[in-house]
């Protein structure tokens, strides 16, 4: 059967580019090398949850209409709106995002992407203090200390460890996969022995207790091991934390304190307290020692920092910690971007308007002031009078009060699947899957652009996001042109 090799996976910000697909009769039959999410996307794209035709809400329910009717209705809504929001953009190609910026400028709306609810604070932190970062290739080959802070790649970026960090075979650093397997086997053996002992089948007691790898009951020996070290800092023990050489469990909303403590310890300052955010200072001293003594370390951070108390201040201090560490050794920091092209959405928005997200075109020129021009705040204040949502699902992922305002005004949705936002929409466009049915460009979390492949043809009549946006833009321009002509004609009569 024909196989397509080196396919870039359009799911998360890791953009794994080694996927192998078996395609027959315009259908993906088998996925090789992908994670569970990748497999779910490549095998589920054709499922029963797709939107098959354009829909318009008539008498309270979504009714199938022609593409021309839907395009006209959407363009009419946008051309009539004073302050529309154009939100989403993170699961589509850079080419579609570029048309989106043009449309936002044309209608004087807000161009905002999903960064506003995830790594927007990271961008604000970077704008405050800059960012010492690198590509994932550098990390794969050279990093000997990996820190995941407030993120769980095993759940959100399943192949991140395997492709870029601890479990990858780099040129200068070796994979820790075998050591991890041994640790798992030893752990399983200990559990079995304990179970047998409880049942009374085994009577002996071990003279020396083996140290627990991921325990917070005492400073671990594992931080002094040879090879790559993996540290996880989180408010709960995640699967990634179970894989770690050292796991630090901090109290919720107190990451800022822990980071400031590490900054003090890295500068050899002494602390007067015994615990910070529930973590004994002696453990943090161990971590600070390993931070300073590594050859090349990297901090990956996620929503645990950006969505908890402190938000962009957490990121600012994390970057400052990395800056401090660069005085003593080599260190880099990188956000774990979620959607496969959210980085691209920031890049395209920045190169076209000067700002990476929450760009307001209502005054005729781009303005950027998250808190004022961010779609979330505009919705919560009830200011916008229409919304266009593309390649995202705020219906499911925005807080209730924001969605309540969104659905009280005309809502246009462009998405391949019938998601929560599409169910709430007034005009719904089915679109082709970028990276499966349409080619395009996407940016990996380390800002490396990669080409997305087209492996199958889209269903008949289903257009790519870029095409739908271009048609809406043309129609908006036509409506505006007609309106400009109308007063002249009336005056002439």
């Amino acid at each position, binding site marked *: 059967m024909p196989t397509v090799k080196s396919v870039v996976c359009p*799911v998360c910000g890791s953009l794994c580019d080694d996927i192998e697909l078996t395609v027959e009769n315009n259908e993906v039959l088998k996925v090789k090398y992908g994670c569970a999410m990748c497999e779910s996307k490549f095998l589920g794209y054709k499922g029963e949850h797709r939107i098959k035709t354009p829909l318009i809400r008539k008498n309270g329910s979504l009714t199938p209409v022609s593409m021309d009717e839907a395009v006209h209705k959407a363009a009419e809504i946008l051309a009539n709106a004073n302050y529309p929001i154009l939100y989403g953009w993170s699961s589509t190609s850079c080419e579609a995002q570029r048309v989106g910026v043009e449309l936002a400028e044309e209608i004087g709306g807000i161009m905002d992407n999903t960064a506003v609810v995830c790594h927007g604070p990271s961008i604000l932190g970077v704008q405050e203090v800059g960012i010492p970062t690198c590509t994932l290739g550098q990390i794969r080959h050279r990093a000997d200390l990996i820190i995941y802070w407030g993120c769980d790649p095993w759940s959100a970026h399943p192949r991140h460890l395997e492709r870029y960090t601890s479990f990858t075979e780099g040129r200068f650093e070796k994979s820790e996969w075998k050591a991890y397997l041994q640790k798992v086997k030893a752990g399983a053996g200990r559990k079995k022995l304990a179970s047998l002992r409880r049942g009374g089948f085994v009577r002996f007691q071990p003279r020396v207790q083996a140290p627990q790898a991921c325990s917070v009951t005492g400073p671990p020996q594992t931080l002094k091991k040879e090879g790559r070290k993996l540290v996880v800092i989180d408010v*709960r023990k995640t699967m990634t934390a179970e894989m770690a050489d050292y796991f630090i469990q901090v109290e919720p909303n107190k990451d800022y304190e822990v980071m400031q403590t590490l900054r003090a310890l890295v500068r050899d300052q002494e602390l007067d307290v015994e615990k910070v955010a529930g973590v004994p200072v002696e453990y943090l001293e161990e971590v600070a020692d390993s931070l300073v003594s590594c050859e090349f370390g990297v901090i990956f951070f996620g929503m645990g920092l950006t969505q908890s108390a402190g938000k962009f201040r957490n990121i600012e201090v994390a970057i400052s910690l990395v800056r401090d560490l660069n005085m003593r050794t080599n260190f880099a920091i990188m956000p774990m971007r979620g959607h496969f092209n959210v980085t691209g959405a920031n890049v395209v928005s920045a190169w076209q308007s000067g700002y990476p997200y929450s760009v307001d075109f209502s005054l005729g020129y781009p303005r950027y002031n998250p808190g004022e021009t961010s779609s979330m705040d505009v919705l919560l204040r009830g200011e916008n009078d229409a919304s266009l949502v593309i390649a995202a699902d705020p219906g499911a992922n925005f807080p209730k009060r924001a*969605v309540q305002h969104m659905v009280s005004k005309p809502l246009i949705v462009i998405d391949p699947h019938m998601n929560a936002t599409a169910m709430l929409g007034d005009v719904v466009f089915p679109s082709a899957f970028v990276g499966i049915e349409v080619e395009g460009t996407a940016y990996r979390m380390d800002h490396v652009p990669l080409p997305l492949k087209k492996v199958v043809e889209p269903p008949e009549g289903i257009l790519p996001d870029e095409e739908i946006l271009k048609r809406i833009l043309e129609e908006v321009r036509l409506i505006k042109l007609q309106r400009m002509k109308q007063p002249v004609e009336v005056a002439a009569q």
Partner: protein
Amino acid sequence: MIRSETMVEQKLCVTLLSGRTIEQGVGKEQGKSSSLYFEACSMVYMDSGDMKKLGLRNDDNVLVSTDRGSVVLKAVKYPRADMPGLIYIPYGPWANAVCSDATSSIGTPSFKGTPAEVEPARGRIVLSMEELLKSEFGR
């Protein structure tokens, strides 16, 4: 009065976290209207000790309430470790029925670290996505 260890409490004050799980990731790629997504997101991970305090067993329904609203979810024991005082709901419309929308004036809501209350809700059903959207947004 000295409270007995085994006494079942009516309500528990906890900190609500929301975030990703691999099941939620697989469900969202399958389709938001799929049963996989419903099962992955209409649940709440709880500490086993906290569940015992409320007299809950695995898969019992609970009512999670915050100052933003309340939602009925299926309580599941967190398998990895103890996390007393914490509950974890995967991202989705069920989590957003109760999560804080405070943006700290920078646009990003506080999806993690919201004070919440949990109480048993036997006899009450977990709403499907359609039902939940209908009850919250009238569509």
